[in-house]
């Protein structure tokens, strides 16, 4: 589904990713772990199409297409979704209508009819239940006045409604207490399927207790240092990132 090859990325002249390669197939759940400043968020932002990153070499192919040639909205239409580490507040823009416009833009792109208001609301209510999001949040402005945990929950709710093929979760676990983490993880698990892939970016093994990954990658100094299964995350927790660098 996603093929990242020898990716080099700089931000304001500083090299962040230095030849990163990664293959993600449908049905898989990947965890990318690593210390602060390793380039984890850079990777997710580059995949989602954010400005301000200079791609000096390498390729990203998504379902056979050159992802780097696509605008952020084209990536969304093609099924890429980023759950932000710091979701921005957008006063005056209604949460539900944002989603409706997003869903319908995607359907239009796929040559489908727009969803009628009734069907859309039905989906929205279902998915809100999935992440135990209070229905009052639906009529509020996007993230405005939400607590940190509510923002993260809203991201997973949006993901559930937009139904992406490739979901990137950028430190979705940070700022969540244990109950919220369980709910969010439950929501993510319900979205797992054989034609979807999930990439979780996280500092801690904690999230992986709830969402079991097929692969764990350690990202440090701009490249994947080591890849393993779930036990790698446990070892990391025990020994720290230096251990990985020493035992490549």
């Amino acid at each position, binding site marked *: 589904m996603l093929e990242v090859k020898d990716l080099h990325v700089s931000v304001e002249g500083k090299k962040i990713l230095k030849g990163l390669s990664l293959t993600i197939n449908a049905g898989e759940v990947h965890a990318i772990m690593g210390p602060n400043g390793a380039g984890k968020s850079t990777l997710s932002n580059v995949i*989602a*199409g*954010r*400005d301000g990153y200079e791609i000096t070499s390498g390729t990203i192919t998504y379902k056979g297409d050159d992802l780097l040639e696509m*605008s*952020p*909205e084209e*990536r*969304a*239409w093609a099924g890429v*979704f*980023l759950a*932000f580490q710091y*979701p*921005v507040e*957008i*006063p*005056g*823009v*209604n*949460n539900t*209508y*944002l*989603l*409706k*416009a*997003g*869903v319908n*833009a*995607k359907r239009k792109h796929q040559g489908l009819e727009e969803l009628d208001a009734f069907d859309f609301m039905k989906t929205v209510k279902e998915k809100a239940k999935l992440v135990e999001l209070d229905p009052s949040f639906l*009529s*509020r*402005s*996007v993230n405005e006045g939400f607590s940190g945990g509510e923002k993260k929950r809203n991201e997973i709710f*949006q993901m559930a409604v*937009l139904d992406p093929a490739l979901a990137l979760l950028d430190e979705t676990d940070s700022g969540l207490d244990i109950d919220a983490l369980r709910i969010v993880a439950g929501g993510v698990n319900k979205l797992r399927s054989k034609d979807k892939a999930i990439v979780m970016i996280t500092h801690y093994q904690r999230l992986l207790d709830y969402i079991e990954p097929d692969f764990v990658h350690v990202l440090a100094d701009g490249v994947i240092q080591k890849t393993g299964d779930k036990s790698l995350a446990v070892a990391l927790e025990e020994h720290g990132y230096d251990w990985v660098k020493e035992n490549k």
Partner: protein
Amino acid sequence: MSVLAQTRQDALNLFEKLGLPTQRDEDWKYTDASRLKDLLQPTPTDANIHIKDMGITGLDAYRMVFINGLFAEAESNLPEGVSILSLAELEKNSVGEDAEGIAKLFTVDTQAPLLNGFNAFNAAKASDGAVIILADNAILTKPLYILHISNQSNVVRHSFMIGKHAEAQVIEHFISTDDTKALSNTCSFVALKAEARLEHTRIQQEGSKQSHVARVQVKQCKGSSYQFHGVEIGGILSRTDLVVNLHGEGASCDLNGLFVLGGRQHVDHHTRIDHKAPHCTSRELYRTVLDGRSHGVFNGKVMVHEDAIKTDSNMSNGNILLSKHAEIDTKPELEIYNDDVKCAHGATIGQLDDKQLFYLRSRGISAETAQELLTFAFADEVLVAMSNQTVRSYVEKAAFAKLPHSDDLEEMLGS
């Protein structure tokens, strides 16, 4: 000469002395009043205007219609038991002691800030206006909607006197029937007695060649509350002087302004708030969205006088330029003559927030739509304080229609 005629004559003399402001005058630096010289004289005739379906439809309100500056009683619907009167009627029927009281409605306060020749001309030549006298403790159960329809130059003069603990909502709406080159010269005088409350909306939506000069002057007694919403959508040149005197302890004002302009529209608001008593609060939020070659001017001055301890004042002005040919001149000013105050002011000029744009696009909203949506949301924040939802939706729609690509957006707007 009667006292009333004398007052009008004094105003005319004052106008002749003052003349029209020029751009050498600091307060008129950016606005060229000389363009309006030939449009000053009112020609108040009933110009065979059919007003059916004009203005804000579906508004549950009392209604007062002025056609080219003259009260159209047949088109109006006023409450019983409340004094809402025509200034022209009052003037016509005034005798003896009454006349002195009515003369006061035409008296020009030469000491008031931002006074100019247009205001003196208004006192001299006003053809009509609304006079609201709300008794102590009275509550106007529905808003009063004052609809001004014109296709010629007109001069109107309103006075809203709100008694102790009384409450009212007044909406002034200015529209034209065609694109005649003309000038509306309007004044609204507001007097709020102790603990009185007024929500006052002005929507300038006149024709594309019409100009508009307004003065809104407010005097607030103890504990009174004044809320203003000024919306500028129409016209070619529009200038408003908004002058608020926080005269009694604990009074508060909340001034909101929104300009959505394009083409060669020019809109200038000068606001002046005088904190004269202790424990008063003032809030001011002005936002502009400027496209084409439009030009916005905002000058907000807050003056905190010596005795006005515990003043709490906050002013903010935000501007978005959608075109490189649009221009904004903004100047928030603060003058403080005592130490015991909490005051803040600021202005921003800018483009849209990149993070918000990216967020929307990552959810599948096209770049163009995302820009529109954020622009609208930016403007709409000023309208949040508007209590009447029918008026707010009307303004949203009208403002919204002026944005370049508004097709897909309508549904997305939050409530």
